[in-house]
């Protein structure tokens, strides 16, 4: 399993950006057979005797048993390693969906986040977006906003944001998998081209604390001291350095709050309650102790 686990650097990027991208991760042999099964899942989902999704809460290992192309994809060692790194052992199935955008579709979804407004604890689900065929510009690639996942919003309140600086519209080769923090803002896009666009999205829940489940061989090297401060002393290549990523749509206040939220999430993921970037949490916690005496 270790060979397929994420690195500390990848985990830090996930915390900072809210997603990871794996181009052509799924072999073409599986991709070529996927659309037929995705179509059946779309058409038969609510039929009594067709291809139906697992029940919510099913352990992932029991989802889509053979013969199933979706099951083959979910059981790929690389996919298993991604899921294990982010969710830990024994994740469960939340739901999935076939996202089919027919050729010639000229309207797209409003920007949204899934489910309901988030709790303020740092736990998170992941959503895997699997594109079994190449997606070119203007072919319905998912729109998403890096750095939006830790914002606490009502999902439909994002409708009015037609364009955000730094947003992305997925394009990429067949077999690409995007892995989203469940809070990432996203939307399906128009597909005015001549070919249908297919994508399988699955949401998975953790069942155990998401602490140190990735390949931590590089953790000691990258996990900075809490004193790491952009206006004092910095370790040049560190988790804090990754957390200083400034997304183009973030103003100063948003950026600093974002660093606080990233540090809180990293504390959860590492079990290190003293972790900090740029002294924001440490400063407040140090002063709070003065009045607790």
């Amino acid at each position, binding site marked *: 399993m270790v060979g397929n686990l994420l690195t500390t650097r990848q985990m830090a990027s996930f915390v900072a950006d809210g997603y990871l991208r794996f181009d052509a991760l799924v072999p073409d042999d599986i991709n070529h057979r996927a659309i037929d099964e995705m179509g059946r899942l779309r058409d038969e989902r609510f039929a009594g005797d067709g291809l139906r999704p697992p029940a919510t809460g099913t352990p992932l290992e029991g989802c889509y048993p053979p013969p199933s192309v979706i099951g083959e994809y979910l059981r790929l060692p690389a996919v298993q390693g991604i899921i294990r790194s982010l969710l830990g052992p024994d994740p469960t199935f939340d739901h999935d969906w076939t996202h089919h955008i027919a050729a010639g579709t000229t309207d797209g979804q409003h920007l949204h986040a899934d489910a309901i407004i988030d709790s303020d604890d740092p736990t998170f689900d992941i959503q895997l977006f699997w594109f079994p065929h190449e997606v070119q510009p203007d072919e319905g690639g998912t729109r998403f906003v890096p750095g939006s996942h*830790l*914002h606490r919003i009502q999902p439909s309140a994002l409708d*009015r*944001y*037609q364009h955000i600086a730094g947003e992305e519209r997925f394009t990429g080769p067949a077999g690409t998998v995007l892995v989203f923090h469940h809070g990432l803002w996203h939307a399906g896009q128009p597909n005015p081209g001549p070919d249908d666009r297919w994508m399988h999205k699955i949401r998975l829940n953790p069942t155990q604390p998401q602490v140190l489940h990735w390949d931590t061989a590089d953790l000691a090297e990258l996990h900075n001291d809490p004193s790491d401060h952009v206006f004092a002393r910095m370790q040049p290549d560190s988790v804090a350095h990754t957390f200083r990523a400034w997304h183009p749509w*973030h*103003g100063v206040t948003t950026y600093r*709050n974002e660093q*606080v939220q990233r540090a809180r999430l990293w504390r959860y993921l590492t079990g290190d309650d003293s972790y900090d970037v740029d002294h*924001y949490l440490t400063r407040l916690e140090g002063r709070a102790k003065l009045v607790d005496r």
Partner: protein
Amino acid sequence: MTAHQQVLYLWANGSALDSNVVAWAFHDGSDGSVEGLPEVADGKPPYDTGVEALRDGWRLLQSAQLIAPPAGQEHLNAYLDYEFVFERLVDC
């Protein structure tokens, strides 16, 4: 000829009308035969600041109020903070 309303939302990275625009939305109440937003490179806002929009004939309808966050939520991000709403009346 009837006056129709065009509405432009600009979200800035600060509370000033000359702060940099980081998000935008446009709703056109005309029949599409009149001027829309200026042509810019893909991914770039139509105006770099709200002041640029004023200079292009847009009228400011509303600025975001500055409201202190509730206690305990000072470090939580949510929506884009600094929203400016403009209108322009066009004949068509």
